[in-house]
C-alpha cells in the first residue's frame, strides 16, 4: 500500500530558515530593482547580481526547503540523510550573499561565494540522488526530480567555472557557456521542478481527479530533450538548431499550460481563494512569457527578451512560489504545533492561519507592480518600471510579514 510516513518529514526548525531567508531575499531583490534602469543590458553585472539574489536567495532556497518536505511525498520514501539540510541552508545563504556582493561591489569575492554555493548544492544533490536510489516509484514527479537535479549539477559546475573566470582566476569562455548555464538553471532545473511538483500539488489542493495527463508528459520530455539539445548546439555554435530547441521549449510550455487548464476545469474545489488567485497570475504570466519569447525569436528584440524574463521570473516563478508559501508554511506550523492537540482542544483550519488582509494586499500590490513594471520595460519607461517596483516591494514586504505571522502562529496556551 502507498503509505507516506510522517516520520519521513523533516523537523520544522530545519525547514523554517529556508522560508524565512527566501522571503527576505525576495523583498531585498525587489527593492534592489530600484537601482537598475530599464536600459541596463541583461548581462550587466548589476543585473547578473540581481538574478543570483533572486534565483539563489529566493527561488532555489525556497525550492530546497520545499523539497526537504515534499521529497518524501513525491518519492514515497524517507530522506537518505535529512540532517544534511542543516548544512545546506547556511552554506547556500552565505554563498548567495557573498556572490551577490561579488557581482555588485567586489568581484574577488565571486570564487568564495561560488564555492560555498557549489558546496551547498553538492550536498543537496548528494542527498537527493542517494534518496532517489532507494525509490521504486517512477512517476512524472520522480522523473522531474531526477532530470532537474542532473541539469542542476551541470549548471552549478559551469557556474563555478564562470565565477572563477570573472574574478580572473582561470581562463574560461564565459560567453559560450553562459547561455547553457541560464537554460540549465531556468528551464532544466526550476521549470522542470515546478512542472513535476505542480502535478502533485495542484491536483491535491484543487481536488482534481481522473484526468488525462498526456499533455504534461509530452511537455516534460520535449523540455528535457530541448535543454540537452540546446546545450550541445550552443557549445558547437549551431545557431539555427539552437533556435529550433528554443521554439520547442515554447511549444512544450504550451502543452504544460493546456494540462493546467485541464486540471483547472475538472477540479472539485472551485472556490477562488488567495492560492488560486496567485496560481492564475503565475500561469497567465507563463503564457505571456512565451508570447514575448516568440516576439524575441522573431524580432531579435532585446526588449521582448527582457519582458519575457520579467514575466517568467516575477510573474511565474515568484507568484507560484508565493502561492505555495502560503499553503505549505501553514501546514508545517499546523503539523508541528497543532496536530498533537487534535481531540484535546479546538485547532485552527489551515486557512485560518493566514492574515487575510496582508495576504490580499500583498497579492493585489504585487499584481499591479508586475503589470506596471512589465509595461514600463516594454515601452522602456524607467518611471513606470520603478513605480511598479515600489508596488511589488510593498507586496513583497506584506508577503514577508505574512510568512512571519504564520511562523509565529501558536496555540493560545503558548501566547503568554
Amino acid at each position, binding site marked *: *500500500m*502507498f*503509505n*507516506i*510516513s*510522517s*516520520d519521513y*518529514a523533516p523537523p520544522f526548525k530545519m525547514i523554517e530558515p529556508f522560508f524565512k531567508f527566501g522571503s527576505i531575499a525576495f523583498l531585498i531583490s525587489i527593492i534592489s530593482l530600484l537601482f537598475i534602469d530599464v536600459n541596463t543590458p541583461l548581462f550587466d553585472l548589476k543585473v547578473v547580481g540581481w538574478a543570483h539574489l533572486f534565483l539563489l536567495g529566493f527561488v532555489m532556497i525556497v525550492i530546497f526547503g520545499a523539497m526537504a*518536505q515534499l521529497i518524501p*511525498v*513525491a518519492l514515497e520514501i524517507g530522506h537518505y540523510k535529512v540532517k544534511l539540510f542543516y548544512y545546506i541552508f547556511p552554506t547556500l545563504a552565505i554563498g548567495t550573499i557573498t556572490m551577490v556582493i561579488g557581482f555588485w561591489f567586489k568581484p574577488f569575492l565571486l570564487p568564495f561565494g561560488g564555492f560555498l554555493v557549489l558546496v551547498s548544492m553538492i550536498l543537496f544533490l548528494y542527498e537527493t540522488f542517494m534518496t532517489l536510489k532507494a525509490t521504486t516509484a517512477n512517476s512524472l514527479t520522480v522523473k522531474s526530480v531526477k532530470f532537474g537535479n542532473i541539469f542542476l549539477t551541470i549548471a552549478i559546475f559551469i557556474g563555478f567555472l564562470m565565477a572563477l573566470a570573472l574574478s580572473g582566476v582561470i581562463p574560461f569562455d564565459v560567453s559560450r557557456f553562459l547561455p547553457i548555464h541560464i537554460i540549465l538553471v531556468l528551464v532544466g532545473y526550476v521549470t522542470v521542478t515546478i512542472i513535476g511538483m505542480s502535478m*502533485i500539488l495542484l*491536483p*491535491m*489542493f484543487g*481536488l482534481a*481527479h*481522473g484526468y488525462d495527463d498526456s499533455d504534461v508528459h509530452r511537455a516534460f520530455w520535449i523540455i528535457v530533450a530541448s535543454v540537452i539539445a540546446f546545450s550541445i548546439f550552443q557549445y558547437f555554435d549551431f545557431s539555427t538548431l539552437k533556435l529550433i530547441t528554443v521554439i520547442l521549449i515554447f511549444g512544450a510550455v504550451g502543452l504544460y499550460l493546456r494540462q493546467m487548464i485541464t486540471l483547472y476545469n475538472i477540479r*472539485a*474545489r*472551485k*472556490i477562488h481563494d488567495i492560492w488560486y488567485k496567485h496560481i492564475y497570475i503565475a500561469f497567465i504570466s507563463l503564457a505571456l512569457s512565451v508570447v514575448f519569447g516568440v516576439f524575441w525569436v522573431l524580432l531579435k528584440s532585446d526588449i521582448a527578451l527582457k519582458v519575457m524574463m520579467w514575466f517568467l521570473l516575477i510573474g511565474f516563478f515568484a507568484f507560484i512560489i508565493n502561492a505555495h508559501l502560503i499553503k505549505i508554511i501553514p*501546514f508545517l506550523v*499546523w*503539523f508541528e504545533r*497543532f*496536530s498533537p492537540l*487534535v*481531540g484535546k482542544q479546538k*485547532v*485552527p*483550519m*489551515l*486557512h485560518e492561519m493566514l492574515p487575510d488582509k496582508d495576504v490580499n494586499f500583498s497579492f493585489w500590490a504585487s499584481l499591479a507592480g508586475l503589470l506596471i513594471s512589465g509595461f514600463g520595460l516594454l515601452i522602456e519607461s524607467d518611471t513606470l518600471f520603478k513605480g511598479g517596483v515600489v508596488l511589488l516591494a510593498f507586496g513583497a514586504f506584506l508577503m514577508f510579514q505574512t510568512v512571519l505571522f504564520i511562523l509565529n502562529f501558536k496555540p493560545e496556551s503558548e501566547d503568554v
Partner: protein
Amino acid sequence: MCSVTKEQVYDELRKIIDPEVGFNLVEMGLIYDVDIDDDCNVKVTMTLSTKACPLHQMITQWVEDAPKKIDGVKEVEANVVWEPEWNISMAEDNVKKALGAL
C-alpha cells in the same frame, strides 16, 4: 454479541476534521465502510482525497483512535484503499456546495 453500532462509529469519525478543507471525513465521503465483528473489533475502510496526502499517517491514526472512545470497542483497523478513487460526487451536498462544486 457486540452492542456497538455503525452509527456510533460514524458519529466518532465525524469528529475528525481535515484541516486543509475544513470538513469531517464522513461528509467528505472518505469513509467507505465500517465493519464491526462479534468481539467489537472495528474495521474502517477508507480513502484519502489524494495519494500524496502529507497527513496520511496522522489521519489513519485519528481514525484508529476515534472509535476507541466508544465503550466496548476493542481493536480498530483503518484500511486505506485507493479503489474506487475518491471524487467529489462521494461528498455530501454541503461539502460540494462549500467547495463550489454544486
